[in-house]
């Protein structure tokens, strides 16, 4: 291959070569995140078409364990509170949280995803052949592999972050409404009121004080904040109890 024919592998982001590489990555990623996109489209349509307001104040993706505990606690005190709708809603959210956790695992396997991408497209040599319409030598294949990997990773991360942020928005909104519905019904229950009001240290003056904050405060009171495994999360919990009313 002489210099006139040599492949353009400079770092010009918008060159036709980069455009083709990007196309290949995006086509693959669209398929790779197919399930996430389907769940997102379904839930986003549901929230938008029914007048739900997106919630930003509380990041429930960090509070899932508290949602679980409050649901189970309320159910164990007065099972009548968790009626068919609340149970259905809880299962829906439970699914979304599991789905979100699984989705996040995809981020740590980026190398194996890249290998799948190469396999699906017949390897670096085959991709080079398709783009440049000629066989590449070993050096060029190596060079292309580096560019391809970097291009793929950047497309992957961009797509991943977008989906992550949208999924969080859906989960936070649905969780907010679930939490509100659960406590609205729980506050009507005499057993729930009696149970929490007798816990003197929680200092519950009225049933409007009954909310997820109780469980977070109780948890924070029970741990030694100087020896926690995840200080960032605990910092967030400290902040969030000031937001929750």
């Amino acid at each position, binding site marked *: 291959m002489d210099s006139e024919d040599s492949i353009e592998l400079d770092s010009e982001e918008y060159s036709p070569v980069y455009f083709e590489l990007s196309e290949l990555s995006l086509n693959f990623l669209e398929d790779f995140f197919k399930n996430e996109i389907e*769940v997102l489209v*379904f*839930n986003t349509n*549901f929230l938008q078409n*029914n*007048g*739900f*307001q997106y919630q930003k104040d509380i990041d429930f993706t960090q509070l899932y364990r508290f949602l679980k505990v409050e649901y189970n606690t309320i159910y164990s005190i007065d099972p009548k509170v968790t009626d068919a*709708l609340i149970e*259905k*809603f809880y*299962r*829906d959210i*439970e*699914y979304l949280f*599991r789905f979100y956790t699984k989705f996040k695992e995809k981020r740590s396997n980026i190398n194996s995803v890249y290998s799948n991408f190469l396999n699906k497209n017949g390897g670096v040599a085959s991709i080079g052949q398709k783009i440049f319409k000629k066989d590449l030598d070993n050096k060029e294949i190596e060079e292309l592999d580096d560019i391809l990997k970097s291009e793929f990773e950047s497309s992957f991360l961009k797509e991943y972050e977008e989906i992550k942020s949208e999924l969080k928005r859906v989960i936070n909104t649905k969780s*907010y*409404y*679930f939490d*509100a*519905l659960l406590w*609205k*019904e729980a*506050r*009507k229950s005499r057993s729930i009121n009696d149970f929490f009001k007798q816990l003197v240290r929680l200092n519950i*003056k*009225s*049933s*409007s004080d009954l909310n997820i904050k109780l469980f977070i405060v109780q948890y924070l009171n029970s741990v030694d904040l100087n020896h926690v495994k995840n200080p960032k999360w605990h910092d967030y919990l400290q902040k969030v109890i000031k937001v929750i*009313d």
Partner: protein
Amino acid sequence: MIVKNTIYTENEIARILEAGERRKLTASEKKLLEIYDKIYLFDGIGEEDIIKIVKNVSFKKVKKGDVILQEGEKSPEIYFILTGKVVVVTEKNKIVATIGSGYMFGEMTFVTKHSRSATILSYDDRTVLLSFEIDEDKCSEVYAFPFVKLYQNIALDLARKIEKTNKKIKAGNR
């Protein structure tokens, strides 16, 4: 059972949306909810409903001699005495009744819509009142239950007062 894309009925969506309506309670509203079980007007009405049907909840600190209600004025507030006491006086400044903490006054205007029938003064330098109004704009089918209960409670209270007066009259006639 875990379901991928859960479907909700229109009624279910309405219930969820209603529960999520964001409304932060004011400090006064919170205080009202702490003591509402002492206010007969709210007997049998849940906290969620109380907050929906009351408005302009506030605290008032008054000194001895301060006029809280003036006979003849038109005002919609209902008062609950948190601390201290107030006196009901006639035109000639004669004290006809004393009302202490834990009791309320001013609620009859909500029913009669008449102007205040007596003047009420603070009888204590440390009188703290919680005042609120009933939001009659909410008196519709949606809030039918709390309003029915509210009128029922007032009717019951009036009936008791009439009974008490009748007893006094009978005792006086003996």
